[in-house]
């Protein structure tokens, strides 16, 4: 038994050495693997699981507010090479800011050629993907959007309190999904996030995608929580304003490779 263990140990030692040698010999790869790391901030203040519920922020309209819960969905991440070739990644990304293990997204097939790219993705699900009850993991997270509002899934659940510096803080539920025009009539409400920042990929890379939460209250609609706090899910106007405001929420951050 001792002998066998020694043999195994020696084998591993050789293997480990030879891998190091390989690293020095192999030229820069032409095919690389990419993954995505979503980070979150309120303007320039980083927001993560440590300070999500303790940070007091001021929105564009001027209300001081606290955040209790932020969960959101993006899908169909796609990199477009400067030569026009597109690489659509499978799967969708469900992020819960209270759980940092959900910040990363590694598509199953994530191999692309080196080169210069731009990134785009869908905010929420598009009409093809937003199928009521179709995804067991999202159902298990109670991420569903009520059938009476068009069904499918939430794109965003952002809960918190505003006017927290007054004697009368009030709750808000900034939830985004399919827009109900009238009873039984619905309008798709996803957004295409098309980021023009050039991403130069020369090796295996982690692409940071930054979410500026403050933008939900800023552009183009300055959000007044005193008027639009809750319920917002059945409110067509509020839903379309959210769809407009999400367009400036995301940007490309650091590319680590």
């Amino acid at each position: 038994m001792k002998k066998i263990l020694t043999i195994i140990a020696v084998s591993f030692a050789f293997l480990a050495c030879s891998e190091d040698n390989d690293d020095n010999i192999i030229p820069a790869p032409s095919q690389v693997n990419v993954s995505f790391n979503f980070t979150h901030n309120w303007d320039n203040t980083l927001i993560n699981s440590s300070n999500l519920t303790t940070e007091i922020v001021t929105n564009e309209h001027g209300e001081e507010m606290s955040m209790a819960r932020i969960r959101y969905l993006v899908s169909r991440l796609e990199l477009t090479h400067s030569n026009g070739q597109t690489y659509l990644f499978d799967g969708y990304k469900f992020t819960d800011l209270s759980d940092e293990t959900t910040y990363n997204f590694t598509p199953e097939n994530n191999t692309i050629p080196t080169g210069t790219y731009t990134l785009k993705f869908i905010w929420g699900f598009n009409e093809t993907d937003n199928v009521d009850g179709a995804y067991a993991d999202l159902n298990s997270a109670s991420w569903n959007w009520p059938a009476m509002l068009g069904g499918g899934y939430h794109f965003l659940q952002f809960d918190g309190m505003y006017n927290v510096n007054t004697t009368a803080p009030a709750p808000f539920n900034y939830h985004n999904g399919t827009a109900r025009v009238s009873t039984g009539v619905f309008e798709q409400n996803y957004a295409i996030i098309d980021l023009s920042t050039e991403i130069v990929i020369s090796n295996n890379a982690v692409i940071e995608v930054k979410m500026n939460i403050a933008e939900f209250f800023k552009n183009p609609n300055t959000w007044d929580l005193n008027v639009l706090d809750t319920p917002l899910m059945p409110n067509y106007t509020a839903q379309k304003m959210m769809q407009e405001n999400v367009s400036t929420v995301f940007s490309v951050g650091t590319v680590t490779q």
Partner: protein
Amino acid sequence: MNGFLKYGVLVLFMATVFNCSDNKTDDGDYVSQPTPAPLNIPQIFSENILDPVIPIDNPQTIEGIALGKKLFFDPLLSGNQTQSCADCHSPQNAFTDNTRFSEGIDGIFGNRNSMPLFNLAWNYDEKFFWDGRVFSLEHQALEPVTNPIEMHNTWEVVVDRLTQHPEYPNMFSNAFGNGPITREKVTKAIAQFERTLISANSKFDRYLLGEAQLTPQELNGFNVFMDEERGDCFHCHGNPNNPLWTDNIFHNNGLDATFSDLGLGEVTGDPADNGKFKSPSLRNLAYSAPYMHDGRFNTLEEVINHYSEGLQNSPTIDPLMKKVDEGGVNLSDQDKADLKAFLLALSDPSFINNPDFQN
């Protein structure tokens, strides 16, 4: 490379040899392996939600479940041998009891309502108790046995009694192989039994499967439940696509302005968690009164009135508790009655009468 292959084959061969010897005891006797008994996952779950959580080191077996059931109903576990798990977790009450607090063997009452037990394998985060203080069902079962205001026993005594028992040693061997009885084996067996406590045959389940019709009142109650402008219950209590009817997450649902029981905050030490308790499932409410973590409400009317008019503000109240300044969502009397009718349609008589779950 050829050399490495050779060693690889050698290692594989050794692993095979070791594996084969698993069935043999030190004395060279062969022991029978327990019989796998995978959970029977209801269609309404398999079609909608993720698979149940079964620990890799405690697979469901016929022998393990039978042992767990016997232990669950056996007062031997308690200090003076008068109280079993089932005393506070009775099948007829969806495995809770009908009192606000439960009485331990020394006549002392706790300060939390006994939790109903069903669909526990679908608690994906595996945080158990009202305050989530224990991870995994196996660890949960360790606590009531030694809790001084519950079964008030020691595990040494339990293991000793089981070891001296005429039937248990054989049952443990059949379930877990030879070797001494341990507290870990006891709670593994109980957890296996508890995972079989599956409830998925309510009138509403059958409605979703196209096998039953709801009354207009139940249908309107369902709409109240799903309507953000009325009940808005679904954000914490599931929906037809999440038929657990709970999120198994911790919320302050506006019961109190100040807290005598910190709940999750006591566990995490984070004041932001004060007053938070796990959302219970809304299945089987017909059998599980009283309600809330402290059993303060005797009827569903009281529960609905709480969310409608009775919310108390506090620094950690969940923002999903709408219109807290008005006491809540202010449902009409008709909507309240309809909501109650819908909630009762989530109860599952076949669960409380399942012969597999009776002593």
